[in-house]
């Protein structure tokens, strides 16, 4: 049986999968924000007499080698991982959005120069570019966030430009030109608001990318110093005793995967609402 037609698109509120994903992101954000009251002992409270305890009634997700509670570390780690992701996303949007908008609205030589720069950066594989920038700035969570944010910016600039080009072809932009509106006025009052929807959708997808790759750099030991409850770094720490205490690595990995998945699903959901009929 082959389906030859596409079902109608649905608004975000009628997409159960996207709503569940949004709820998960809210839950993780809330857990990170309330970590001090949910796990008052902090992520570093060690108790070596209770090392490598399996998940049970007192430690919901078990403990690591030093007897630190995995759930507490995950809650506090959400601050590191989400903080890194949001800082990276701010860098991506902060650079990509103005570059793409200006290129798409102004056109001409401005566009040519900006887009050649973007193309040159796009020639570098994303994670390798981020690694090179960490090498430049020196290891650390901050440099990892800035590096993956920078690596994701060229793709965002491309999407922002094509969104701006689409709006610029609309008759109301011609009308604004005709009554003497300046390019900047047109960019801020017409292009930006009308191009916002696809840009928000792509930002959600990019959040997934920066989380995945930022945590990858932490996993490789290029970011958070050892012992930091960042999820990628926690995953790496648990590798040594995978056989005896698999929960030390698997739970941070699960938290990370679900969060990246949620960001991608929210991006997909927003994308669907934008699909042309």
């Amino acid at each position: 049986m082959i389906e030859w037609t596409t079902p109608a698109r649905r608004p975000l509120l009628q997409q159960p999968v996207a709503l569940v994903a949004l709820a998960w992101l809210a839950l993780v954000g809330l857990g990170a924000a309330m970590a001090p009251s949910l796990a008052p002992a902090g992520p570093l409270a060690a108790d070596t007499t209770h090392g490598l305890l399996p998940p049970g009634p007192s430690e919901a997700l078990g403990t690591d080698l030093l007897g630190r509670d995995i759930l507490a570390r995950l809650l506090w780690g959400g601050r590191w991982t989400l903080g890194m992701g949001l800082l990276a996303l701010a860098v991506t949007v902060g650079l990509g959005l103005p570059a793409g908008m200006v290129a798409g609205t102004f056109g001409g030589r401005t566009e040519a120069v900006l887009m050649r720069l973007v193309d040159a950066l796009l020639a570098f594989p994303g994670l390798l570019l981020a690694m090179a920038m960490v090498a430049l700035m020196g290891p650390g969570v901050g440099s990892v966030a800035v590096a993956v944010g920078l690596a994701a910016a060229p793709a965002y600039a491309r999407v922002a430009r094509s969104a701006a080009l689409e709006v610029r072809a609309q008759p109301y932009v011609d009308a604004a030109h005709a009554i003497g509106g300046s390019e900047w006025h047109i960019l801020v009052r017409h292009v930006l608001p009308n191009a916002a929807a696809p840009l928000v959708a792509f930002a959600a997808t990019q959040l997934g990318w920066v989380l995945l790759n930022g945590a990858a750099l932490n996993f490789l030991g290029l970011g958070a110093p050892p012992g930091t409850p960042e999820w990628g770094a926690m995953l790496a720490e648990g590798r040594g005793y995978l056989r005896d205490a698999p929960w030390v690595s698997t739970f941070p990995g699960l938290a990370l995967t679900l969060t990246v998945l949620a960001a991608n699903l929210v991006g997909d959901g927003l994308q669907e609402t934008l699909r042309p009929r």
Partner: protein
Amino acid sequence: MQLTPGDPAQALLAASGATPEQVAERRAQLGLDDPVPAQYARYLLDLARGDLGQSWLHGRLVSQMILEQLPPTATLSLAAVAVGVAVGLGLGILAAVRRGTWLDTVATTVAVLGLSTPTYWSGLLAILLFSLQLGWLPATGEGDLRHLVLPALVLGFALSGSIARLVRARVVEVMEEQFVLAARARGLPSWRVLFVHVLRAALAPALTVTALQFGFLLGGAVVTESVFARRGLGKLAVEAIIWRDLPVVRGVVVFGALAYVLVNLAADLAQAWLDPRLREELM
């Protein structure tokens, strides 16, 4: 690269207890006392001649170090591409032809899972299940083909996610075109319309899109090598970053970009060869 905090010469020699004079001598040797623009100009000139410089740490040619580590990375990447394309095409076509049904939901869910699961997590899960629990395959290291299976599956699965989504979108697009409607109106059997008309039109562009994933593949290979403790470009790059051996980092990144551009050029040419309309445009 030169604007970074910390003095590489000092970092490299500190461990061996060198005197300040020795550090200064090494700085002069590496050309680190020259003005930054002069250092950069020299690097570009060398690069144009195919010279990636020397490792600060080992004193060996960067190009030679890269060539040594290339075979394991290339093997892993090719195996992962085979897995990724096979799984991605299957899932993408399945989702497109059964769109809106539960099969579509399952296939697109698997695809987005592939896209979202870090290889450093799926790799550990695979080791846990297939090596530690079942004992079927070796967990880490390299040697025979059995060592390649898990890393290739893990990286291939990650790759298949994006391929499946692109193939699905492309096939859906073609299925709604006029010539497909015309073929169905002529009463051709469904499978014939699908295989002869839809897939042929949909898959040539899918090739280009797969080539664009090559950049992802290189990054993924770096991480996957680390998970499975394999030799390769990834290990080379990570160690170079930790030791601040900048010529090696720079070399791996430049090499990666070059390979990426060449693969995409090859894919464009292959597509021109497959699609007669493009062939005329290009020639």
